[in-house]
């Protein structure tokens, strides 16, 4: 009976989980803020108190993500792509493709029947291809991020976002707003534009079903629907999409045993 901790320090959000016998005991997400090191500590403490454990009970801690180097209490770092594969494989054994829509980039990871990486592609470091695009637009439209997806579903005529960059996209949004287009139509347009990018990213590694979506983007229902429309399939959405990669990290910790 062993507990394992996985910490995923992203550029904007830090996530962590504790698993025991492949069962999710605790999970937590906080903004990374200015210090990865602090974020890592905060996450650990919260996870331990959730699981009513002490550091001593944890057999191994594995870190991943942009700031993994700052997880001072981790025994080692591992690749976020590998972790996403392991994480999704645990939640959806049958999943062959995982789309991870994170704040800085979007990853498409193909997973083989053993949960190993079969292929992957990471979007260019371009906000328009990542969840960041939605943040930026929500900000322009003054819509709370959490309402963005729902709002976009109200749209009857989504605007066409023809530009390929969040910065251009922003000024395009402003132009459309200036033309009197409503918030929901733009929100829907944003999700459509991001979904276009994601689907063309998926096409680069040849989609295999079933396909799951995770990362912060998976919380945006409008985006999920849009991607489903683009790819013409049903996406599997895990219960806590943001912590899938952290989960994978904890699992690699486990499998080392």
């Amino acid at each position, binding site marked *: 009976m062993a507990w394992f901790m996985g910490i995923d320090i992203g550029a904007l959000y830090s996530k962590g989980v504790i698993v025991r016998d492949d069962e999710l005991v605790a999970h937590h997400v906080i903004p990374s803020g200015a210090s990865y090191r602090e974020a890592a500590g905060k996450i650990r403490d919260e996870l331990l108190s959730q699981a009513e454990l002490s550091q001593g009970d944890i057999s191994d801690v594995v870190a991943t993500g942009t700031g993994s180097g700052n997880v001072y209490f981790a025994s080692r770092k591992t690749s976020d792509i590998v972790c996403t594969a392991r994480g999704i494989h645990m939640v959806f054994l049958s999943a062959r493709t995982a789309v991870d829509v994170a704040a800085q980039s979007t990853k498409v990871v193909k997973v083989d029947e053993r949960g190993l990486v079969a292929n992957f592609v990471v979007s260019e470091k371009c906000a328009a291809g990542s969840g960041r695009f939605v943040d930026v637009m929500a900000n322009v439209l003054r819509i709370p991020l959490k309402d963005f997806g729902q709002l976009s579903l109200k749209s009857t005529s989504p605007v*066409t976002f*023809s*530009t*390929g960059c969040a910065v*251009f*996209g922003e*000024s*395009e949004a402003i132009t459309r707003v200036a033309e009197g287009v409503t918030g929901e139509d733009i929100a829907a347009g944003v999700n459509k534009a991001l979904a*276009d990018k994601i689907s*063309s990213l998926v096409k680069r590694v040849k989609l295999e079903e079933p396909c799951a979506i995770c990362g912060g983007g998976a919380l945006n229902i409008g985006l999920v629907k849009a991607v489903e429309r683009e790819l013409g399939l049903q996406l599997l959405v895990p219960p806590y999409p943001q912590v899938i990669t952290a989960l994978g990290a904890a699992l690699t910790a486990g499998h080392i045993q």
Partner: protein
Amino acid sequence: MAKNATGLDRAREIYQDRSRRARELKAEGRKIIGYPCAYVPVEIITALDLVPYRIYADIEEPVTEADRALPAAFCPVMRSCLDCALKGKDDFLDGVVATHSCDPQEKTARVWESHTGYPYFHFIDIPGTIRPEAVEYYEGQLSDFKKTLEIFAGRKLSQARLKEAVQLHNQQRSLVRALYELTKPEPPLISGTEILQVIKSLLSLPVAEGNALISQAIDEVKARRNGPGKKPARLLTWGATMDDADIMDIFEAGANVVMDESCGGIRPFRTDVKLTQDPLNGLSRYYLKDISCARTFREAALGETTKNYAADIESRFGYLKAIVRDWKVNGAILILVRFCDPFAFEVPSLRDYFDSFGLPSTYVEYDYTKGSLAPLRTRVEAFLETIIR
């Protein structure tokens, strides 16, 4: 398409639904040959009773399919052309003729050829200079093109037929020049947008039909009272291609565009093909030397061993000075899509040249999306505010 529509109305209709007529013709059993570049000798296509159809990009269509083969930092016009092809929007074409007119054209052509299954596909290599050996080589490329197209059409092409085609297309060229004569008066009798629509139609129709359309348009314009009206400035626009009325409208909101030196304007029509003994001579000279596209390397004198910048830009841009004089142009807008290298390298020198005779000019670029037009509007308005006294 309204049967009774003629001249400018018909041009507008075709502009809005370009492939409609081509599809009708295909239904009647005609074969349609698409080409994405002004360097393809349409005379050869016409002479074999095939319909030449200029392939345009579509600024309204977000690029999704082309990503598989072309990166984002690539000529957005060719990206869009390929994207439309991959989406089957050109499915009515029986063949495509691509060229090495510039690097993006060449790269796109190869992908095009392998990702689409047109019954006919031919690639024309185009040399970079106008040296005699280059013209010879290019003529060889044209005769190869003629050969493969003859095989596709299943008939030999006689010089007589080719000469007729050259005459027909020369007639179209002189008609387009006649159309541009109508922008010389103040105010011009026809707007830049109307001309853009007419030319886009010409490049979507069999040459005879096109000639009929443009003749009607000319008569209508001469007869009508309600022209575009006098605007505070008379502009020359210069660039690789101008294919969208929304862009022209941005210019014409505050000025009259009296000349568009681009592939969507005067460029493919500015001079005639010389009728030579073997028509291929005249065609190769015309297409390599006379089309004023930046992709061709020109110098004051072939192999010159002394260099004089003033003479150099005079030899490259001199024809524009005549246009500026004859059309009383008082401002020039250099407009390019991003990543258009051959034209982009030209920009500072062309502006030097315009400065040399006091013509105000500005350079604007966009990424070939509707979204990038709003910033264009601001720049163009601001430019007009600087030249209008």
